[in-house]
């Protein structure tokens, strides 16, 4: 177990020193610019716009980074053969994958944490005080982190057998498709026969990002049910575990060139 933690810690260190967190600067600029602009032009809906824009930006920045570092850091280890000196030690391949996953999610968590501070600061700037319904923003952020968890696992799964570029394409496509997962299940229900079987299978295999997106709800200060929080958490964990298991199974059999 300690080896998994070591690998995770090293992954985190690599990401930080690779200047991944520099994206926060772009995020901060975007958000403060938007906050100032919104404060001046849209009367009455400043809060709505800041929450919508802030959370969407957190999500999109995070998604890009999750895919980018998820694939980048793993494929780099293979390409530059640093993996050789790791796997010739008493490190099992699954420990490497799990360690990488934990390190990547740790990085994204820290990244999201700073972005969250930015969102709340912008919120404070436009509405001058916090209200109790702002707590739901934390839930939305938590769901966004759950999305990153799934994406990281998928990025690892794809890098375990595919080239970095293809992996990025796969992961990003799944993110887009997964954002319409509920509509996909709707389509599946409406089709017939063999097509229905195939569509249903596909609809259940695609990661369900739509249930994890509650930005709209939160922006309108609507509460989120405890059931949804519980199921979403369990779902994200189960789906990530599934992708990680797939990555381990493939990676266990892979020849490192």
């Amino acid at each position, binding site marked *: 177990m*300690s080896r998994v933690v*070591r690998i995770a810690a090293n992954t985190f260190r690599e990401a930080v020193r690779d200047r991944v967190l520099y994206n926060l600067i772009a995020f901060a600029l975007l958000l403060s610019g938007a906050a100032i602009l919104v404060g001046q032009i849209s009367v009455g809906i400043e809060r709505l716009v800041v929450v919508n824009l802030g959370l969407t930006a957190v999500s999109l920045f995070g998604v890009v980074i999750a895919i980018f570092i998820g694939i980048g850091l793993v494929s780099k280890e293979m390409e530059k053969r*640093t993996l050789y*000196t790791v796997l*010739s*030690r*008493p*490190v099992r391949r699954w420990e490497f994958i799990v360690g990488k996953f934990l390190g990547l999610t740790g990085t994204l968590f820290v990244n999201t944490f700073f972005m969250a501070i930015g969102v709340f600061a912008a919120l404070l700037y436009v509405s001058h005080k916090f209200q109790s319904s702002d707590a739901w923003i934390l839930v939305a952020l938590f769901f966004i982190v759950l999305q990153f968890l799934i994406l990281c696992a998928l990025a690892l799964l794809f890098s375990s057998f595919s080239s970095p570029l293809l992996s990025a394409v796969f992961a990003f496509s799944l993110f887009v498709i997964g954002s319409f997962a509920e509509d996909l299940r709707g389509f599946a229900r409406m089709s017939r026969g063999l097509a229905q079987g195939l569509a249903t299978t596909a609809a259940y295999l695609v990661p369900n990002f739509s249930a994890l997106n509650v930005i709209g709800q939160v922006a309108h200060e609507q509460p989120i049910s405890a059931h949804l929080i519980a199921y979403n958490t369990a779902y994200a964990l189960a789906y990530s575990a599934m992708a990680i298991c797939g990555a381990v199974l493939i990676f266990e059999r892979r*020849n490192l060139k």
Partner: protein
Amino acid sequence: MVAIETINLEKTYAVGFWRKKPRVALRPLNLTVEEGEVFGFLGPNGAGKTTTLKLLMGLVIPTGGTARILGKNIDEAEIKAQIGFLPEQPYFYDYLTAKELLEYYAQLSGVEPKERTRKIEAMLERVGLKDAARVQLRKFSKGMLQRVGLAQAILHDPKVIFLDEPMSGLDPMGRREVRDLIEELKQQGKTVFFSTHILSDAEALCDRVAVIHQGELRGVGHVAELTSSVAGKVELIWNGSAVPDGFSALGAECHMSGETIRAVVPEVQQEAALEILRRERLRLNSLTPVRSSLEEYYVQKVSLAAKPAGAAR
């Protein structure tokens, strides 16, 4: 005790995207290396040396056969604590300093936290990187990286050390240092298994060598044994205006530069050659045995192998 043992270890890659064709990287290999030996693994580029090392490290999954290190199957992760490995042209995490890198590897190898700092300091000293300990590896030269690579391979005091082309990319001083290091490891009773295509290194360091070519083991043995099977050559130098008749019949290679003639003849023809020179009343300047008999052996094994396979050379 047997340090390294391979039993019919083989690897065939499937190449191509659609219709995969098999490409044999290593034919069934049976090899035994005793503990405390320095073992040289010789062969031209692409002969299967790196494949063999990767198989032994568990980086590549064998198509057939097994291998054991210190009596344990290589699948068992625990055995890897006893192994040190230097990959060919090593490359490490750019963003770490030499010290951080060694710390990370020491943790992965399960070096006791108490000993860690002491061992790392000592190792940096030993490979001459003490001053560069806090420099990020991205600023390291190729030679320095090779030193870091050696340091990480022996850091955790392994019993068996695998080095893939340890001398490549090093200047003469660096090569000398690596040689000294290998000698030192031998003194400590470690088993060293290294691949190289530089024969003089192998000849100077190895107890035994193996020659591999086109994925096939072509010969194994003590350096002395192997070279004895190959007839040596001698070099004769004298002053004269022309090569006397009869030399070509001896199978000699002659070179003239000015008044000096240099001829290399097989050792068995030495007496005949001297006889010719005596008869022609020519004065011999020197007679020296040509020492590269391991090279002779190597060339013989490698070119023998090449012919039936129809390769270019």
